[in-house]
């Protein structure tokens, strides 16, 4: 069970790639799939490595990211 989780709202994402650039763990990439608006949405490669920092959410213009953090 991963400690933190990032979800991409696939049909909201416009595939700008800013989250890919700013993810400190480099676990986001643009998918080969096409969403309902015709963009390649972001996808999370390795959920285990997510630290829940929320950088992808902060820089996302849509916002197409939902971040969950473990309870402390």
């Amino acid at each position, binding site marked *: 069970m991963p400690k933190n989780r990032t979800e991409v*709202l696939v049909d909201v994402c*416009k595939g700008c790639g800013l989250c890919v650039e700013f993810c400190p763990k480099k676990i986001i990439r643009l998918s080969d799939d096409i969403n309902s608006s015709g963009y390649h949405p972001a996808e999370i490669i390795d959920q285990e490595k997510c630290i829940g920092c*929320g*950088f992808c959410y*902060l*820089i996302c*213009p*849509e*916002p197409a990211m939902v971040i969950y953090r473990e309870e402390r």
Partner: protein
Amino acid sequence: MRKVYHRPEGLTDTLMRYCPGCGHGIIHRIIAELLVELNIRERTVGIAPVGCSVFADEYFNCDMIQPAHGRGPAVATGLKRANPDLIVFSYQGDGDLAAIGTAEIVHAAARNENFTVIFVNNAIYGMTGGQLAPTTLPNMVSTTTPRGRNTKLAGNPIRVCELLNSLDGPVYINRTSVHTPQWVLKTKKAIKRGFEIQMAKKGFALIEVLSMCPTNWRMSPIESSRWIEEVMSKYYELKLFRDLTKEEK
């Protein structure tokens, strides 16, 4: 697990029609988050500009008015004077605020009207197709200056924060950017300060936000983020120009 970041209630469910990588979406989200955080959504009226963000009334989950081009500060003045308990913010782009609306913003600032202005500076006219704006940098290519902005022919850019800082009226003037997550957080802090000043009835607050326009800059979203870092923020210095509430203490 706890949901820490998600689409704020201050935004409607309408999908934003901005280009991929556009800074407007980030700034909309920051304002929407603050409407919820400061618990002012029910008594806020936003002023939408003319420009790319002309449909802001569809995106913000609060009352909105869409006045004539550049007249946001004039409408905000009337609104705030008639209803002092409302929270009024004017969301304006560089064509709206620095070109056609220059008179309104300068006089609203000089009168120290009690509302918050969020000025989105992307150095170009976005909606109409990338023409020269008053904030276009020297030698920057736009569709009306294909060989770069020649300052002898097309004049010099206007630095709005420096211009308004020469007035005695405004209480808070700050210039930030949304090109990195760190600057997004700083922008949020600045806009929050702007709303708090208004809630304390202190006076006029203007936050200039440098924003990406990948489509009209002919760059990828990541290149435009770097361009703000390396070029644009050198010309438009990112700093706090004035916070009169701090000097009083």
